[in-house]
């Protein structure tokens, strides 16, 4: 083979490679997100302002943080629906302890640890007893939320110090960049690197795609999943703290229903509900897409009700469209084979 021919072939390969990469759902979603952001900035009044940017970041803060460990869990083929309730219980405990006179500096780590313990309970039920994670976490969803109400009742604790509440809602040097964006970026980078550039991350995909083969390759499947639930709980606990500080209000019903938004964002970001597939950039794009759509539609005075329809439809479509694409491709290949056979 001449060098020239080889060069041509390599170029072909490169083009194919680029096309193949672009055709995956996570890159579609990233492009779609960029598209929505650009279109909204130009067509929706007040969308592109720095203040709106701050608001949007604050609105997506809980979703994006909880989505990080949720991505890991769904990649391994499990699910954690109890995150929002863990958040609520952490918030309740925060309020309770604050009323007891503990210092906020000791409350915050306690809440994170409480979250980790709640996650460990999920993890034990799923990996230790081998129960289905969907059922377990629906159960703990009710349990943790119930306990949150038991701890704090229906009341609210509000008088958190401004140093902290102000930090959560504030921006860096009163510029356009919210303080919490730093936190989001740092955590997203850590989770992204772990998922995509460590042996641990590799093992998550293997577990999700084929847990048995992963086990045969020396991956400690149960232990890995257990720790994922612990991390998920800890992050949910942390988000409970942030939520409480953002709204200056510790309440048992904080974050109710958040799990649906998180799962929707993760699936929208191209993570397969069956496990084994997905990318963190895709998930981030999914979160931003949902938040931007909501924000833009709200600025256009579209009711929150219609947002529900959009969220639900996107969730279903994120799985349906790739499926349809695959089946069209197989039908097409079969046709081609048949044609080739009859010729």
């Amino acid at each position: 083979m001449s060098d020239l021919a080889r060069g041509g072939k390599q170029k072909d390969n490169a083009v194919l490679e680029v096309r193949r990469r672009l055709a995956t759902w996570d890159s579609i979603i990233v492009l779609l997100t960029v598209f929505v952001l650009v279109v909204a900035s130009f067509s929706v009044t007040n969308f592109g302002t720095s203040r709106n940017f701050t608001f949007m970041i604050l609105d997506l803060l809980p979703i994006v943080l909880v989505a990080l460990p949720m991505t890991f869990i769904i990649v391994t083929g499990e699910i954690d629906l109890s995150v929002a309730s863990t958040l609520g219980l952490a918030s309740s405990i925060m309020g309770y302890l604050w009323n007891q006179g503990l210092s906020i500096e000791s409350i915050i780590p306690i809440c994170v640890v409480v979250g980790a313990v709640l996650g460990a309970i999920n993890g034990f039920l799923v990996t230790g007893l081998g129960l289905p994670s969907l059922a377990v976490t629906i159960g703990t969803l009710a349990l943790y939320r119930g306990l949150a109400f038991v701890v704090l009742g229906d009341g609210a604790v509000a008088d958190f110090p401004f140093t902290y509440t102000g930090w959560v809602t504030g921006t860096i040097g009163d510029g356009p960049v919210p303080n919490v964006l730093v936190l989001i970026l740092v955590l997203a980078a850590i989770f992204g690197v772990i998922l995509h550039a460590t042996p641990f991350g590799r093992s998550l995909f293997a577990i999700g795609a084929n847990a048995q083969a992963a086990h045969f390759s020396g991956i400690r499947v149960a232990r890995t999943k257990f720790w994922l639930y612990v991390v998920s709980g800890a992050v949910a606990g942390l988000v409970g703290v942030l939520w409480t500080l953002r709204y200056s209000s510790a309440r048992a019903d904080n974050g109710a229903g958040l799990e649906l938004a998180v799962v929707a964002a993760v699936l929208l970001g191209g993570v397969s509900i069956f496990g084994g597939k997905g990318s963190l950039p895709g998930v981030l794009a999914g979160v931003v897409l949902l938040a931007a759509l909501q924000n833009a539609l709200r600025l256009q005075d579209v009711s929150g009700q219609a947002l529900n329809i959009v969220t639900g439809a996107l969730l279903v479509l994120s799985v349906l469209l790739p499926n349809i694409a695959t089946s069209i491709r197989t039908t097409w290949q079969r046709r081609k084979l048949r044609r080739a056979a009859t010729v």
Partner: protein
Amino acid sequence: MTATPGPSRPGPAKLEVRDVTKSFGAVAAVQGVSFPLYAGEAHALVGENGAGKSTIVKMLAGVHRPDTGTLAVDGAEVEFAGPADAKAAGIAVIYQEPTLFPDLSVAENIAMGNQPLTRLRQIDRKAMHANAARLFTRLGVHIDPDRPARGLSIADQQLVEIAKALSSEARVLIMDEPTAALSGVEVDRLFAVTRALRDEGAAIMFISHRFEEITALCQRVTIMRDGRHVCTEPVADLSVDDMIRRMVGRDLSALFPKQDTEIGETVLEVEGLGREGVFRDVSFTVRAGEIVALAGLVGAGRSEVMQAVFGVDRYDTGSVRFLGKPLKAGSPRAAMAAGMALVPEDRRQQGLVMDLSIERNVTLPRSRALARLGLLFGAAERREATSWTSQLQTKLGRLSDPVGTLSGGNQQKVVLAKWLATDPKLLIVDEPTRGIDVGTKAEVHRLMSSLAARGLAVVMVSSELPEVLGMADRIIVLREGHVAARLTRAEATEENVMYAAMGQQVTT
């Protein structure tokens, strides 16, 4: 045993396979195969593993649709949209792997789809129970029709499958290795029932690796090799040797080269290993440079023993020592760290992560070693994968393609690459050549042989007797979970391995 002569001129074909082709991705499983099944005749379908027999069965069952070619029932072309259509056409199938509903009772499993009904179109449970009991009496087995199918032994599951097929009073009965897990008595009963069905005018298609069963039951045989039709002839016209030669396509002796090597020190010592209900009191040793084969019937506990040794399964009693040190039980990671590698039996479920890329699969057990400062970069993995796949002459497109797009043989090479990359001292290979083409098979055998020559200890679990006889320095035969015989290469013959596996005396 002698062949029972069937009717001399069977008339028009009850079911006919006409020039059928079926591919899965890049793998052509069946290519241009045609043969007829006649009413009142038992027809054997033979071929090596991966020759395409099960694909034919699944097309006849309506599970797969042929890419090209057609099926015909009573001379009329049919297209099965699903198993329901095949069932409606009077085709009953006994699959290789039992397909029972674990939560339902045995009687319900048998009756599923055509339960006896009362006048209100409700299910007549009494009749259903009686029906199952009658079938079991006919098969001469004792299974409680009211117990759930969950927890049945493999043999009992197979018997329920057979009862299920009988209950549908099918005109065509397809049996894909129904006897693999059955005892001699049960096989005799099954054959008696099958003969009766055949004589009542049913068409039988019978798949088996046991030639004595084929000669005892069948009138006609179709031989397949690598997805292609080799021949269809009366069983009486072919000797067993003829059949094997046509199945394999070349002489056996050339296939399995084992170089003589110097046997080194003991690598693996298994002592009194047992697991409740699976295997008991299994002891053996393996030394460097040696290939030890574990032979026996399906379900004899061979894979289970090796999986317990490697740590993917637990064991209840006994001990495993590796290079003189006790090995932690139940930890594949410890086994890998000590220098053990297991190429498992089921490539799709255990050996590979089909959706992941080739390179990820190759480097999966090694990803920690490849990481720098805890971080993995694609380049290191790609280098490693490139090196090993090219050493094993794996035919592939891109390393980033999902491993599921490769052919069976190349997939097996990826599994081997994955484990050889860990630089093991003991390589356990479980059915190393199942479902791969003849050429690759020879390559795999050559590889194993050269690995042993380099001082690797090899344990090979295999159901293919020629492979066992050709490759192994020593053979350990398991039957029903315990060691039935230990044979050296010199002692081993096809007969004495088989008889030990089946628990019968040599009566030649």
